[in-house]
């Protein structure tokens, strides 16, 4: 197997606690450098994981095959231009881009440079998500009638200081829907094989340009054009039902955000009929999902540089942008860090 050299752009929590432990254990993968404007943090990470180089700028980085882009979405423009220009494949942590236009620009640029793109929507690789998708796809519960999704809670302990990027509307992309929403939205879209959406109502609670809660209703288009009612809430203001509920003609299934969670099946009368999955520990299940995500991307880079909309989660980006535009059409321009 051809060795794969990986560079890390960003030395934050998500790199240290989620990606690095997995990357270090993948056969044939070597970490060539870690790049972060906070050089102390980059050096600390490099020291812990025996990464040969810790640098402040991409200009100082040696060639690699793949770059993990794990910097705030509002700060990615110039970095992605350099990465794609050097012919490196890019695996981006969610959210992929703040707007559909930005998203399409990145994809077009990657195609022009003939490099592969990936997105860190790890829940696609959860056993429960695959199981739920297969169950719904089998038709055993009948056609879908309603889809509900919720995530979040009243924000209490963040454990972060004043320089946390999520406190900046520009850096974070504007709020909880952009920060936490992609996982939930993509999870719903994956399980239900959503083709398109229609937003009838979207209410957001915003303060100083930061959105703290979004509740959105409308219809998701499935099964070749059939609309199904949906309701999604993402919040940092209130404790919310955390999970996904898919109601079908013959029953209902429920699952949560946990990587080791079960899929619960309910009968038509609301009685629980059974549970599937959920045997391993949370840590093991999450590691397995991240590993699957990386393996899939590395294999895909070796096969082809063509990406489809699914590979980068374009529908998820478009949906999230549509929610923001529903309330403030000019907002999308304000946070976009990438122009055409």
């Amino acid at each position, binding site marked *: 197997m051809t060795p794969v050299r990986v560079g890390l752009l960003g030395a934050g929590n998500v790199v240290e606690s989620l990606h690095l432990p997995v990357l270090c254990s993948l056969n044939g993968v070597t970490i060539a450098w870690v790049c972060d404007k906070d050089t102390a943090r980059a050096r600390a990470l490099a020291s812990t994981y025996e990464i040969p180089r810790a640098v402040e700028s991409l200009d100082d980085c040696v060639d690699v095959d793949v770059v993990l882009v794990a910097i705030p979405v509002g700060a990615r423009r110039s970095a992605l231009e350099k990465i794609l220009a050097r012919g490196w494949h890019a695996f981006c942590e969610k959210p992929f881009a703040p707007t559909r236009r930005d998203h399409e620009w990145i994809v077009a640029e990657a195609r022009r440079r003939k490099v592969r793109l990936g997105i860190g929507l790890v829940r696609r690789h959860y056993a429960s998500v695959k199981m739920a998708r297969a169950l719904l796809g089998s038709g055993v519960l009948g056609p879908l009638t309603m889809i509900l999704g919720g995530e979040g809670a009243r924000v209490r302990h963040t454990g972060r200081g004043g320089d946390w990027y999520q406190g900046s509307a520009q850096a974070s992309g504007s709020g909880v829907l952009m920060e936490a929403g992609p996982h939930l939205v993509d999870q719903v879209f994956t399980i239900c094989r959503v083709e398109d959406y229609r937003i009838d109502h979207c209410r957001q609670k915003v303060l100083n340009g930061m959105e703290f*809660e979004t509740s959105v*209703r409308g219809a998701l288009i499935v099964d070749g054009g059939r609309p199904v009612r949906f309701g999604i809430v993402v919040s940092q203001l209130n*404790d919310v039902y955390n999970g996904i509920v898919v109601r079908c003609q013959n029953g209902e299934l429920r699952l949560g955000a946990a990587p080791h969670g079960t899929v619960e099946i309910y009968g038509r009368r609301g009685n629980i009929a059974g549970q599937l999955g959920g045997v391993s520990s949370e840590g093991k299940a999450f590691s397995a999902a991240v590993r699957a995500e990386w393996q899939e991307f590395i294999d895909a880079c070796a096969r082809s540089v063509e990406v489809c909309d699914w590979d980068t989660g374009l529908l998820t980006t478009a949906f999230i942008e549509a929610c923001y535009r529903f309330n403030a059409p000019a907002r999308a321009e304000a946070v976009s860090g990438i122009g055409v």
Partner: protein
Amino acid sequence: MNRIKSGIVGAGGQVGPKLLSYLSDDPRIHVFGICRNEVSAGPLRMEGYEIRCGSVTDPATAADLLGDCDVIINCSATSGPPARKSVAERGMLRAISGLPGKKRVIHFSSVAVYGGCIDSRRNTSERPRPDQPYGRHKLDLERYLWRCLRASAHEAVVLRLGHVYGTGQWLSRFVLDAACDPRFQLPFGGRLPSNSVHVRNVSAAIRRLILDWSQPGTYNLFDAPATTWRQVFDWNTNAVGALCVPSMGEEESKRVAAYHRRQAAIPLGVRLASEITSWLRTLPGSFISACPTVKTLGILTLASLRLEGLERRVLKRYKRMSARADGRAAAMPALDSWLLSDGAPGAPLLYRGGEIEIDDATAVADWRARYAEPDALLNWDAPGP
């Protein structure tokens, strides 16, 4: 009228928002909150509260944030790994102690300093016996605060908070989840003291302290009048229209309580030795499980030796080991030991407990509907806590 300026450190936590809400209604008090970043400050600012953002750990910024306060209420709790937490929280206490002027500090500790299952024969207020990392950490902070204040003009009241219940509080969530679990039974019918406090009573006590300062010292903070577990559980289940949780029988309750008391009384070193011994006993079995080849060799050896007596003894020992492990697991119902506590020792803070109003029960019902019922997602119109 000169209002008493009061700053709440950790305003974005579990109890902080309720304190802000309650104290803001009193015209004699000017209250504001401190949050570390804009994300935790946002929800509170949306609710109309005055919030200052910054780190109290840094003495320079602590002076900016709290320098003009008369009273500082520290209900913060840092998250993260243990060493980082300890360093951060000690830094905070040091910075507060070093503020200029003479201030009154109300520091939130926890009833956990007395241990998980409080045994009044072994615990006193002066010498509490925590048996869990959280309780030890809280006791360490109490002692550190008193040491810091020796060189300071400030006065302090340390409140060992009971288990807090009410809207948004972990104990209410625990109770409401337990009410949905058909296996859950309340020990001794719930007649044991709960060592709990409704979040409205926490607020009432703090208001009383601000307006009528107590003798500096350490006090327990519980419901006034004190409540039993049955009262706490029933208040929560009534709020959401659920059935009361069933009671555990008296004999079973005594057996479970005796077990937890015995466990709580075992010193850490003895527990460690016991666990290592148990682990050593499982080594042969786990070695065989981990090395299937050993098991195969064992079977082949027994078959070739044709010693039925030896084979019977080996199988008997193996079955006895397995049965012992299963039996131990099934012996005790899974139950949180704090449900079996005695009343905590030491002086309670005296205050006039609020009538826990209908509004509080309605708020619990609304809160529960939002986090427990998926249909709430379709008709989401959250009015806020």
